[in-house]
């Protein structure tokens, strides 16, 4: 039986949730506001900022100075590429651990997660040297590989959780009907796990898009994605807040729009299996 909730309680909950949501979103909103101000107005007190004139000059300046589309296409290739490559490795791995668990499956899962506990900077120099020797510094393929490796534990863990929710009997039935392993994974398992896989893909694209440590350290001019684009507008000697804000808005807009349109998928996937 559902618990009854009074209207005033509902109103209070909504108000608290809306306030929290606004507080979390406020920094992004403020960046958007600053991006439409002149440099002089951007450093004024908050109320004066809001009442001062609006301008596109920062966007024009950023467009003139930097090649946005080069950075944008690098970000797309790196984030989508690393997610797809990760998926290619993670689906069989998660399948094996979910449906044919061994004695050490739990340990393997923990070990994979433990690789995320090492601070990235700890392996920066070895990876830099390996990339140098392989000639893949400042290359998109190099970044796809490194971001795949970084996000792989999360992809495997997420898929493993979703796969565990799928009854093994369905796969067994497919096997009894003569489905090969490939057909079983492709035509039986994958369609059932689509919501989970969609949220895994979306979350990993967002993670890869926002990754700033490796993308800044392993790139120079050719493969630099939008994180490097933002970094080029930050300066300890000179107030370029409006331009920095404009660059940030341009960098986060694509992923924000993607997140907005796919939020249903994302939430559905993340809560998949929460209620049985």
């Amino acid at each position: 039986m559902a618990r009854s909730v009074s209207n005033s309680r509902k109103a209070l909950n909504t108000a608290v949730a809306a306030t929290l949501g606004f507080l979390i979103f406020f920094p992004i909103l403020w960046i958007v506001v600053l991006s439409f101000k002149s440099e002089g107005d951007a450093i004024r007190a908050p109320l004066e900022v809001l009442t001062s004139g609006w301008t596109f000059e920062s966007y024009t300046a950023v467009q003139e100075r930097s090649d946005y589309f080069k950075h944008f296409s690098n970000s797309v290739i790196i984030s989508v590429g690393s997610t797809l490559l990760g998926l290619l490795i993670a689906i069989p791995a998660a399948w094996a651990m979910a449906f044919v668990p061994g004695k050490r499956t739990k340990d393997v899962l923990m070990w994979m997660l433990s690789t995320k506990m090492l601070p990235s900077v700890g392996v920066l120099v070895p990876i830099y040297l390996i990339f140098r020797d392989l000639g893949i510094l400042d290359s998109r393929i190099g970044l796809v590989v490194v971001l795949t490796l970084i996000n792989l534990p999360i992809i495997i863990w997420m898929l493993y959780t979703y796969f565990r929710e799928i009854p093994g009997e369905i796969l067994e039935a497919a096997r009894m009907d003569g489905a090969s392993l490939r057909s079983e994974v492709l035509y039986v398992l994958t369609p059932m796990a689509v919501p989970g896989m969609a949220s895994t893909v979306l979350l990993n694209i967002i993670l890869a898009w926002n990754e700033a440590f490796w993308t800044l350290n392993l790139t120079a001019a050719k493969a630099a994605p939008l994180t490097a684009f933002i970094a080029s507008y930050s300066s300890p000697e000179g107030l370029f807040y409006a331009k920095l804000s404009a660059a940030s808005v341009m960098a986060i807009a694509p992923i924000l729009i993607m997140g907005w349109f796919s939020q249903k998928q994302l939430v559905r996937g993340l809560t998949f299996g929460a209620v049985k």
Partner: protein
Amino acid sequence: MRLLNTLIVTTALGALVSTAAVAATTVTIATVNNGDMVRMQALSEEFTKQNPDIELDWVVLEENVLRQRVTQDIATKGGQFDVMTIGTYEVPIWAKQGWLVSLNDLPESYDVDDLLPAIRGGLTVDGELYAAPFYGESSMVMYRKDLMEKAGLEMPDAPSWDFIREAAVAMTDKENEQYGICLRGKAGWGENMAFLTATANSFGARWFDEDWKPQFDTEQWANALNFYLDLMNEAGPPGASSNGFNENLALFQQGKCGMWIDATVAASFVTNPDDSTVADQVGFALAPDNGLGKRGNWLWAWSLAIPAGTDSEDAAKKFVEWATSKAYTEMVAEKEGWANVPPGTRTSLYENAEYAKVPFAKMTLDSINAADPTNPTVDPVPYTGVQFVAIPEFQGLATAVGQQFSSALAGQITAEEALDRAQNLAEREMTRAGYIK
């Protein structure tokens, strides 16, 4: 048909050969996001027009990110950059490691003798020039003429610390958010420690004695730190322990600071009427002293250097020569006006009658000339550098010491505790690095 095929093959081969003949050498330049550098990037089309066989790729990064990025690349011989923008701190250290290409063979037309001696000295190791200065800066006092007049005081060209304190207190009106002085408080070797190290020099303090023994337990350091803390508590803005260059610039431009002692490069910002509400009221003076023969100003030059082992050394040298030449200065003056010319590198610029009309030109030159990186302190020291000590350990150590001084400014610890901790940190680091036993 055969004739057609032959024709196609010959044309394709011809195209390949001609492409190879004009194939451009790519020079990748790593630089910081400062106004002068951004201008250089915009004007570099002129260079590529003059040198069609050279292509330029730009990597513009925030100063601290850039420093980490280029250090990592040069130390591992990653070969990602052909020209690097580095400061006076890196040049002597990297040159001693053999990481930089000597620029002693620049042509006579470059006129290396025209470089300001203080700047050139900071970029030269064992007689070899290892980086070409793009712009040089020192620090100086920027003050509000109207507030100074209201306080009934007159700023001398070369003030003492006592006068600065008197003026700061007289100009302070905390109720109306008017603060007599704004100084750096944010922790970092290039933040509060740049200011405090230079200030300490004028109080007779030094980082190390001639045997590399840390000196934070001396009376001179206690005097310098106590003076700074008292001054900031009496006449500084609230929350100063998190203020760096940008925060103070914003305060000054909004008219909230009576005085600001910081980089000379700030002069062009605070006098720009588009951004500054006090643009027509700013005066300049040399950094203060205590009558001990050393002023509290620093010396820094953002310079262009070429990493050893680059594939494009000749093309990189051509670019460095172009960007730091007299002709570049004239081009900037012609296109953007004399106030936007990169300052502080060449004597000829300061002999130019047009440049002399820029309000902060003379004070910038005098400030640069007042700094001596090879002899920065009252008592002798084994290191070079005015606001830094040119040893690899300095970055980490000074940032840790800066955190202590910043905590003291925030009132979390006393000046005595901060100095004690600084002494311990320095002794431990210098022992670990083998300078002392």
